[in-house]
């Protein structure tokens, strides 16, 4: 059997068709990928032996040899008989039968369509350059830049510019100062969320409360923080020295902010470097020739000896209030200062080892038994006789087995209580004293007890009034004399006299009356410095105040400066030796810092007077 195979091959991208005719001779012809096939289809999708062609009575029969099968018009078939004009396909190859000619039993036209236009290399050409897989750097640059501008500038700025004083907001008088009581300013505009990101550093602890309220200080754009903003809260700031006599310290043209730098964190914006003070104080005469201050270079090396405010005597002023005369005395251990407070108090006796006698047995006293910190913790609270001494030193008048409470610091009332006792005793009668008049010695029917008589003064007075004239005179005279005897003992020796000096003075009727001399305890020994007990609480009291060895109340128990210098040395040491640890720059009691400030100072004072007391105390 002979088969004429006509091969038509189309080239990709061209209309040219190459034509080749081959005569195949055999019983059957293999169709497949194998080179050994009579009809070779060189495509890897065609099976090795895909089909077999036979010629059967002029018809071409094609049988599939693989699962790939043959595509006929009716679909995929396993066998196809092709009469002239019939055609089947395998992959991209089309077979068409034609009537036999040129001595061949059959003719078959094999048309080969061009291979799929996929170059083998193209399949593996993934993206290999970053430019192909990443957005362009220029685009990213724009996106990032616009994001920064949008989030950090435009967003907060739209809010900020609407505020009073800003270009887009209502105009304000920037020289006007709004006084604020307390730290939180409720009139401030709401902070914009991203405005916080403008902060150039954390505020100090004392300003933390207004940390998010940028507008509290930053009022006008591109202007340094004006004093007005500071003064709205800090209107009471005073000068450092008298600017009339020392014009050098006038800071009229200096902003608060040039010394008090904020946004640096820390406890407060108060400058602690000692050079800020010693710049002037190391040679004070060059700054102010009239100054009487001593030069200071540092606390360690050159600092005036502490000048203590020592009480040198106590008088009474016109209203009867005690008034101390105070002398500032440089502390000299060889000639210790002598305090005349009007009080007799030996510390050593109270702190004696083994304790001292008290109504409740022996008690070992500590410093803190009497001395407690006052609220705030800086100074000790004032000694209060009833609270701090009265536990042992009981104010009582003890007679006839009864203890009568006596008031402290009320001499006339004490005299009245005692005199009442003697009158009551006289009215009860039966007094055995030899000096007593007969009316007092006489025994009476006990209708009313002595205690009741003392409590019901009116009844006593009535009973006295009912006596005969001579008896009454003698009775009152006797009670007065007895009272005076008791008063002499109480004021001179036993009770008041334990701690106070007391004297007898004639009153307007010429009768002698006991009077305790005024006494004042010093609370603030160093008025030009600020001492705070709180940070010193870990120390023993006696480390600074040598109370256990002080037997006289004239002793001044303030420590010498060297005791302070044990800890307060170089600034790098724990305690530090900054000037502002003890001293303030803005000295209380001076005038306001500047004329503008003076008005404010007054306004602040007026506002305080108007404000309810609770607010003012804050």
């Amino acid at each position, binding site marked *: 059997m002979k088969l004429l195979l006509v091969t038509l091959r189309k080239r990709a991208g061209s209309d040219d068709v190459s034509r080749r005719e081959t005569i195949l001779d055999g019983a059957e012809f293999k169709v497949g*990928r*194998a*080179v050994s096939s009579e009809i*070779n289809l*060189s495509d*890897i999708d065609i*099976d*090795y032996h895909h089909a077999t062609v036979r010629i059967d009575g002029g018809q071409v029969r094609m049988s599939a040899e*693989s699962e790939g099968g043959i595509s006929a018009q009716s679909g995929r078939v396993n066998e196809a008989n092709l009469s002239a004009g019939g055609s089947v396909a395998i992959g991209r190859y089309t077979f068409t039968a034609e009537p036999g000619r040129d001595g061949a039993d059959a003719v078959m036209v094999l048309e080969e369509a061009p291979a799929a236009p996929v*170059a*083998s*290399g193209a*399949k*593996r*050409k*993934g*993206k*290999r*350059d*970053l430019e192909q*897989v*990443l957005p362009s*750097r*220029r685009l*990213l*640059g*724009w*996106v*990032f*830049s616009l*994001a*920064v*501008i949008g989030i*950090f*500038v435009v967003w907060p700025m739209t809010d900020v510019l609407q505020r009073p004083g800003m270009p887009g907001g209502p105009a304000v008088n920037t020289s006007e100062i709004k006084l604020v009581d307390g730290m939180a300013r409720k009139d401030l505009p709401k902070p914009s969320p991203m405005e*916080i*990101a*403008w*902060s*150039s*550093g*954390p505020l100090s602890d004392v300003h933390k409360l207004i940390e998010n309220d*940028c507008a509290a200080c*930053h009022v006008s*754009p*591109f*202007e*340094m*923080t004006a004093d007005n903003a500071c003064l709205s809260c800090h209107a009471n700031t005073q000068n450092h020295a008298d600017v009339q006599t020392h014009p050098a310290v006038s800071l009229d043209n200096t902003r608060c902010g040039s*010394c008090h*730098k904020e*946004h*640096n*964190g820390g406890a407060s914006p108060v*400058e602690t*470097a000692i*050079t*800020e003070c010693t710049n002037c104080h190391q040679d004070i005469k060059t700054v102010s020739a009239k100054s009487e201050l001593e030069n200071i270079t540092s606390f360690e090396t050159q600092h005036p000896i502490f000048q203590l405010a020592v009480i040198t005597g106590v008088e009474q002023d016109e209203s009867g209030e005690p008034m101390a005369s105070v002398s500032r005395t440089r502390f000299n251990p060889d000639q210790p200062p002598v305090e005349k407070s009007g009080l007799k108090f030996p510390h050593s006796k109270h702190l004696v080892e083994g304790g001292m006698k008290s109504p409740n047995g022996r008690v070992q006293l500590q410093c803190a038994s009497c001395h407690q910190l006052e609220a705030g913790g800086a100074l000790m609270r004032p000694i209060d006789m009833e609270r701090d001494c009265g536990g042992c030193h009981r104010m009582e008048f003890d007679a006839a087995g009864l203890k009568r409470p006596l008031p402290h610091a009320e001499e006339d009332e004490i005299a009245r209580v005692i005199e009442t006792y003697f009158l009551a005793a006289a009215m009860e009668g039966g007094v055995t004293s030899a000096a007593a008049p007969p009316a007092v010695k006489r025994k009476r029917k006990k209708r009313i007890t002595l205690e009741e008589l003392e409590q019901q003064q009116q009844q006593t007075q009535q009973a006295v009034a009912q006596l005969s004239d001579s008896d009454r005179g003698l009775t009152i005279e006797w009670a007065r004399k007895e009272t005076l005897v008791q008063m002499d003992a109480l004021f001179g020796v036993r009770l008041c006299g334990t701690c106070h000096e007391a004297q007898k003075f004639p009153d307007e009727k010429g009768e002698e009356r006991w009077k305790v001399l005024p006494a004042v305890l010093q609370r603030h020994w160093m008025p030009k410095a600020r001492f705070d007990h709180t940070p010193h609480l870990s120390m023993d009291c006696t480390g600074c105040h040598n109370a256990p060895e002080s037997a006289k109340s004239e002793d001044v128990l303030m420590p010498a400066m060297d005791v302070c210098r044990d800890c307060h040395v170089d600034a790098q040491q724990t305690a530090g030796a900054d000037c502002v640890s003890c001293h303030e720059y803005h000295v209380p009691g001076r005038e306001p810092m500047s004329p503008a400030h003076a008005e404010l100072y007054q306004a602040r004072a007026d506002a305080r007077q108007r404000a309810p007391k609770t607010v003012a105390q804050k």
Partner: protein
Amino acid sequence: MYVQTGFLESRFWFWAGILLSVAALAAFIFYDPPGGRDGSTIVGYGLGGLSALIVVYLAWLGVRKRRFSSSTGRRRNVVSAHVYLGLALLVTATLHTGFEFEWSVHTLGYVLLLIVVLSGIWGITVYSGLPEKMSRNLSDMIVEKKRFDMSELEQLEVDLEEVDGRLERILQFLPDDFRPAIRLSLDKTKIGGGLFSILSGSSKRCATAKAETQVRGLIDSGSYDEDVRKRLTDLVADLARKREVAACLRRDARYRAMLKIWLWFHVPLTAALVVTLIAHVTLVFFYW
């Protein structure tokens, strides 16, 4: 080595960078103003202004470098200035901060500057080592340079295409069992792809490597006549060659990406940095 790192060779800019850093450090140490060392003192403003000038100058150099084709010597000098001034920025800008950082636009500027400078250092590092590795990677893989007008990379691509042609033809002599493996190698062997496959350069999941394993398995498990066995030897050799060349090209793509990836940090963030600096300076004085 000389070729790639020639940009580090300018003595002038080296000493300029050192001098700037030392001067900045000395000013920072010896000037101890009340309120502490930070960006708002005289020295702080000085350090900040200097840093901002350097940033703007270097950014401008970066733009100019692309715009003009200058002579090699001049280019090298410009890159030298870029590198050493950029490194000096680490000192001047850090001192300008006074070591105060918080969540703010100011700290953002510093962080951007850090990223820009550090990515620049990254760039220097890759430029000093990678090009040599890259050329060794390619030249080691060249068996025979057939055309001298072709780069080594192009040569390897042609090699791969030739291997693919042979793989397709050889199947005419091989049973159908081998077709899936060859199909796999022809269709699925990928070089590059997404960002991560480029950057990893890994050939662990290479289709040709899998095809090779499959073919070896078939050879071990079947018996073939002499002619087919000879063809199979050729097939294995071709697959192995293709596997190696593909791995080499993946490494090449990876090196090429490493050589450039830092620019995606360096360039866009420089733009953001310049903008942030303008915002920083404006806002600092807006809320003076």
